[in-house]
């Protein structure tokens, strides 16, 4: 059954159908094969709706909205001007800043999609102006957003912790090491890219100019202050922080900078709604598809065929990595964690792996898979937000994927990359 379904999906995908159709066709084929007719398709509708309903997804439209207001107004420009005044003269400075901004944003957001939007929307135009190629810029944004999943808080880790009975606090701390390692690798790659492609630099800014840029960015610097202060001060949750950003962005652009009128706010809300719908129908269709996979017990069948019960610890970690990586290329990370973690639990236990180590590997694979074709949700988000064709969004991806996979392999052989901070904190 699995092969029929996947073949149908790939053919429709390649023909150029709207992306929801391959996912829905896979779902419908699955229903047909399970039940012999379409009588039970109400459940497909139920699952499409179930897919878009989780409370944490609210952060996505809210961050799209806030980022859109900031980018149309002055906030984003002023913030970036400030950063540029410090790093504009360095080769690859802006690219490294973008990756770093994604990592920092990860500290407030559990969602990779929200990171794509919030960091990518304001920074992409500036990187294009600075002379970076769009394929590099898009790939950098999409893949750096993976880091947000590893830096706490992370929805993925919370779900994993609950399903696998693992300490969430330990997972959170263990994610930081690999997160920073990836940032370091991306930064090095960005500098190499900038040197090799001879991306022009700006003249080094004088301190007077830097001071002026900081001054102009004072109001917009309220964003990180509000988000970080609000979350760690116990005023709102990461999801609610997104809505707080919307409020602050509206206050700045409508009242302080007077860049946006009510008509502008309406138009921005409308286009936010449009992008949300385009991405969420895919999230919903993906949920319906994963219901079919789960109902037909396909993961159990495939893993049984692989013979996972006879493998050693390293073998098990490789199978886990591949399973989560592939799973998240097709469906939502949360669903993949819910479905696969219980299936792997007995074998993880049997070979004596540290569940925190496994959790970090899974979180990393899930993040990578979300940024990987064909159905990675971060790619959908980038396409919808930046209005670029599918191929252009993924063209620059390969070097980043190679880096990420290298880190994954390193993490399998050197658990200490993840566990050393945990061991310091908890032992």
């Amino acid at each position: 059954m699995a092969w029929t379904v996947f073949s149908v999906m790939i053919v429709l995908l390649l023909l150029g159908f709207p992306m929801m159709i391959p996912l829905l066709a896979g779902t419908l084929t699955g229903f047909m094969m399970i039940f012999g007719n379409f009588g039970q398709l109400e459940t497909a509708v139920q699952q499409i709706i179930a897919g878009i309903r989780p409370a944490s997804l609210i952060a996505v439209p809210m961050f799209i909205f806030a980022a859109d207001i900031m980018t149309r107004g002055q906030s984003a420009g002023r913030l970036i001007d400030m950063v540029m005044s410090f790093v504009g003269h360095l080769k690859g400075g802006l690219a490294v800043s973008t990756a770093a901004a994604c990592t920092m944003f990860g500290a407030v957001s559990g969602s990779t999609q929200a990171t794509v939007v919030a960091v990518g929307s304001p920074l992409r135009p500036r990187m294009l102006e600075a002379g970076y190629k769009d394929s590099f810029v898009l790939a950098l944004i999409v893949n750096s957003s993976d880091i947000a999943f590893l830096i706490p808080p992370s929805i993925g880790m919370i779900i994993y912790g609950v399903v696998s009975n693992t300490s969430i606090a330990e997972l959170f701390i263990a994610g930081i090491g690999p997160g920073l390692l990836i940032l370091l690798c991306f930064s090095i790659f960005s500098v190499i890219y900038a040197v090799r492609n001879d991306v022009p630099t700006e003249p080094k800014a004088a301190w007077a100019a830097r001071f002026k840029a900081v001054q102009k960015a004072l109001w917009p610097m309220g964003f990180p202050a509000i988000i970080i202060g609000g979350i760690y001060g116990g005023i709102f949750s990461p999801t609610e922080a997104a809505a707080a950003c919307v409020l602050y962005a509206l206050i700045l652009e409508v009242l302080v900078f007077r860049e946006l009128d009510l008509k502008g706010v309406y138009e921005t809300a409308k286009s936010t709604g449009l992008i949300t719908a385009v991405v969420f129908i895919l999230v919903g269709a993906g949920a319906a598809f994963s219901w079919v996979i789960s109902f037909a017990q396909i993961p159990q069948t495939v893993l049984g065929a692989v013979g996972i019960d006879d493998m050693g610890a390293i073998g098990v970690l490789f199978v886990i990595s591949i399973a989560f990586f592939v799973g998240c290329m097709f469906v939502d990370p949360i669903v993949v964690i819910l479905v696969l973690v219980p299936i792997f639990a007995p074998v993880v236990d049997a070979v004596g792996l540290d569940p925190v180590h496994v959790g970090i590997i899974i979180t990393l694979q899930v993040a990578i898979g979300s940024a990987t074709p064909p159905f990675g949700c971060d790619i959908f988000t980038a396409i919808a937000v930046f209005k670029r064709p599918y191929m252009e969004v993924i063209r620059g991806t390969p070097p980043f994927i190679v880096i990420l996979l290298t880190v994954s392999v390193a993490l399998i052989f050197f658990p200490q990359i993840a566990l050393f901070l945990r061991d310091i904190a908890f032992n």
Partner: protein
Amino acid sequence: MLTDDTSSLPGFLGTVDLAIAKLEAIMLALGVLLMALNTVANVLGRVFWESIYFSEELNRILIILITFAGISYAARHGRHIRMSAIYDTLPPWPRKLLTIFISLVTAIFMLGLAWYALQFLLTTMGRGRVLPALQIPVWITLCWVPLGFFLTGLQYVLTAIKNMIEPDIYLSTNVLEGYDNDEREV
């Protein structure tokens, strides 16, 4: 900015089509604004007084509304995500035929889902489940789902027809193919 909202249909049908487009747009914008307002109000309520007990449910209702009002609006503006690598390499005539084929098949999927969504709505109505906090029937929150699928299907039917009668290739009723240059528009 989204260059709305012209209808490709003549006469009275055009007026109806335009009215639907306007309604979809209003749903989208209001849905997003209400969601922001609701979430912020809940935070303020919790900090200074007490939480809005139905806040989460209201957001769930709004996200369904936004998604299903949005998919037909997106179809109208040719904004649904697709992978066009192979499609783009084809010469005009096969490309036009493929566009018509894709539009018709997509329309069949959408209209089919509209039917099953309606059945799901009726089943839910029959069972009488309510939202725990708001205590209103769940089926009310689902009303836009069959409608959204139906209107999306209709848009794809119209796209197919438009491609049959016009010489150019249309991605949607409103949009000629080719990525436009106003990509800074979000």
